[in-house]
């Protein structure tokens, strides 16, 4: 069977669970269904590869730094709170 004549309903059905498959959250039998499908459907396999890359790119995004002035203001607020809670 080529990817041109296989049952597209299987593509649709697996499409729904793709993220769970990628995250290893499916049972072994469900994973095997994906692996078997990919042997007949290079299109779905390429799609999963694109999804994996997209997830890796999101995972690799750098985190913005807390601006110094916000950090300073926070530490000052905490100090003021401490002072009001424990007046000397």
């Amino acid at each position, binding site marked *: 069977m080529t990817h041109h004549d296989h049952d597209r309903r299987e593509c649709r059905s697996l499409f729904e669970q793709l993220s769970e498959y990628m995250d290893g959250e499916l049972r072994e039998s469900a994973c095997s269904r994906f692996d078997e499908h990919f042997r007949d459907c290079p299109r779905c396999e390429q*799609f999963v590869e694109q999804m994996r*890359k*997209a*997830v890796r790119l*999101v995972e690799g995004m750098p985190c913005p730094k*807390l*601006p110094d002035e916000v950090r300073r203001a*926070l530490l000052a607020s905490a100090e003021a*709170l401490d002072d009001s809670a424990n007046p000397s």
Partner: protein
Amino acid sequence: MDNAELLRKIRDDEPGAFEAFVDRFGDRIYGFGVRMCGEREDARDVAQDTLLQAYRSLKKLKHPEALRSWVFRVVSNACLMKRRKGNYQTNREIPLEDLMPGESEDFSAAIPDPAPGADEELVLSETREAVRAAIDLLPPHYRMVLMLRDMEHFSTREASEILDIPESTVKMRLHRARLMVRGELAGSEAGNGQR
């Protein structure tokens, strides 16, 4: 210092405990705020409110292993409150059918490789900009789940507890968010000659 030690210092009101808490969570909370609230001013408010509010109430937290989840529960709620004050958007779920790729779409087209070499700084910078834009385009309730799962690496169960939604909803929203980001990145490559 691990979370158990940090929590002990906070409970005991040790000098420097708040500073250590800000060092541990400040960047992550600010980053979460920037991506959820969009505007830097709102993100600053969220970071300030959240860190102070979380710090004050952490003394009641019994389990150190729940520290990180607890902090993100506070920040998620703060972001949702900011959203409610701004433009109201319902948490409509997008039908999966709407996110299915077209029959003619070419999946062999390259989304840029996430691990470019040092001589590809420009590509890396452009790629990150495209990813940032794709994340910004997500509906907020999808963006929040994507950030908790794929950026903060919480489990499905943890994300469901943080957001107080069923695990099935976390999975559904994560899948749709990833599909939308992939679609944007594949589309963003279409126009710049790299396909």
